[in-house]
């Protein structure tokens, strides 16, 4: 079995199993904990609207606070957008998804995707430097905060290298790219990449718990 066969076969299978099982385990582990019913009389009925409202509002600029957190907001938006473009609109990626899902979609020109990938990588590097130097972030960071960023940088880096055919045979570069993605899948449920699954539930519960008191969170 070549490295590429391994990366496409057992490594992919097992990393996906760990990814899915880990996410399910971790989400259930939190969601199944008991929580006491709030017995106070709500100011108004709260529910879906408040929860969805907070999901939406925390993605929008934060009025009075905004000027103090603009850097994080802009980098946050730019990073997630660049990542989506890179993952979802690169021709070979779409072919890969098509082989699994059975359908594909139009791709963006390679130059655009490469640019997005480079931006995403650059933002991660900037965020990593900020984490290591900004006094607040430095203080609150743990190993997971660094590991999670680095493990997301690797697929971007190996992807760009594979695209540019630098340093080794394309098959080997592709295998390394796949393996770096699989490493990320494996790490995913153990660290804070889990925020992908948790952010909306968390915002939702903030929305409803403040909402019943009459506060638009």
């Amino acid at each position, binding site marked *: 079995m070549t490295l590429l066969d391994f990366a496409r076969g057992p490594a992919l299978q097992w990393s996906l199993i760990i990814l899915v099982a880990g996410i399910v*385990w971790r989400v259930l582990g939190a969601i199944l904990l008991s929580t006491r019913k709030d017995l106070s009389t709500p100011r108004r009925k709260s529910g879906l609207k408040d929860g969805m409202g*907070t999901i939406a509002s*925390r993605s929008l600029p934060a009025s*009075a606070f905004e000027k103090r957190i603009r850097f994080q907001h802009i980098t946050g938006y730019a990073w997630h957008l660049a990542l989506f473009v890179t993952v979802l609109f690169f021709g070979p990626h779409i072919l890969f998804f098509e082989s699994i899902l059975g359908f594909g979609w139009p791709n963006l020109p390679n130059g655009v995707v490469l640019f997005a990938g480079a931006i995403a990588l650059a933002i991660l590097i900037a965020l990593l430097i900020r984490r290591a130097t900004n006094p607040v972030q430095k203080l609150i960071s743990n190993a997971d905060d660094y590991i999670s960023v680095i493990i997301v940088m690797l697929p971007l880096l190996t992807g760009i290298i594979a695209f540019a055919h630098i340093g080794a045979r394309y098959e080997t570069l592709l295998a390394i790219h796949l393996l770096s993605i699989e490493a990320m899948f494996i790490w995913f449920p153990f660290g804070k990449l889990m925020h992908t699954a948790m952010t909306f*539930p968390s915002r*939702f519960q903030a929305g409803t718990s403040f909402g019943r008191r009459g*506060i638009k969170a």
Partner: protein
Amino acid sequence: MNTPSQAFTEFQVSLAQLGQNTATDDWSDDQRMERARHTFMSRLDRRAAVDMDTCIHCGMCAEACHFYVATQEERFTPAYKIDPLRRFYRREVSPMRLFNRLFTRKLDADDLREWSELVFEACTGCGRCDMMCPMGINISDNINIMREGLAAAGLVPGELRELQDEQREKNTLFGVGADELRSVASKLAEQGTQLPLDKVSADVLLLTTAVEIRLFPEAIAACAKIMQKSGADWTISTEAFEASNLGLISGDKASRRSAISRIADKAKSCGASTVVVPESGHAYQALRWESANELGEALPFEVLAISEYVARALKDGKLSLKPASDLGSVTYHDPCRLSRQGGVFAEPREVLQVMGLDVRETDSNRRENLCCGGGCGEYAISRSARIRQQAFDLKRHELDDTQADAVVTGCNNCRINLMIGAEKSGWDMPVISLVETVAGNLAE
């Protein structure tokens, strides 16, 4: 204006003396850890678990916290204040706990001691960080859990401990109990305002606070006038008049519960349909939002802040106000625990507008309002005086920027903290009470 009265000076002397004779617990570090552990275990429910699992350590919450913004000290970052709880969650509760133990340092009693400073002295529980967190984490709720754990471990600052014990054991605060209330009642009677104390049955149970009795008897008179004018069948109980709840602040469950039960029992025994909370933000939070959960049952009465009561009476035509002649423009300071934590935003503003006042908003307002810097028992803790003053300066600038004639607020604690800050910095914007302004402008 803002010249300190003698009562205010004396009150500050009592504040300075707090904590000198506080009881301490003779526990070993292991015992303290065990007690904290027990509390954390019982309080880390689904809500808290989702919070603990979602924080991405972005640090944005720092920018919401007046203590960080004012001092730029990174230790005051809200997420850092709950770091021990998160570590505890990761090691003991998380579904990944076995794995997490490899990377997460175990909590010890020294951590608890260190964080006692951060969560009591450098947090007013204002909840501003909750509004800022992009992940929707309820940080102030988790800080409450921290406080409860620390209280269980006997690590509450001396000042709060002394007040909390006094309230639970003697049913007094700052030495103010039934006798002091009676003597204020007779003084007010001489001035023509009757307080119907201890009626056997009444529709409205009005509360007050030790702080009002000592410093702001005009606020009590104001509530009384409002009750009278609105035609309420009301009373104040000499056994259960104290709205403040030091246990809510210190995290001590027994104290919190006893203060709540005293009021709930009295309201039930006199058949009150409404309990009216005076100008005290944390008292509102305790009674309006915590009491049913603390007692484990829905309450048979409604809890209203005095500003809600006034707004409702105006709407129902039971009360009317004339234009305030001595004031033009005001800015309203939202007490954190009444507004951002309690949901009372609209009523105070409506009431001010009915009096024809030009209500100017500060740059941060309503759900984003800046804390006065000393709410929630903070002003009692002598060690936090420095950062409190720095936080006050932030607030002061926002208030000054409105160029209003006065700042109106609906909480005694905010009022005291603003007065202390004003005294120290020579700031001269008048700090006035909403309820006193209302009582001064009741239409015949």
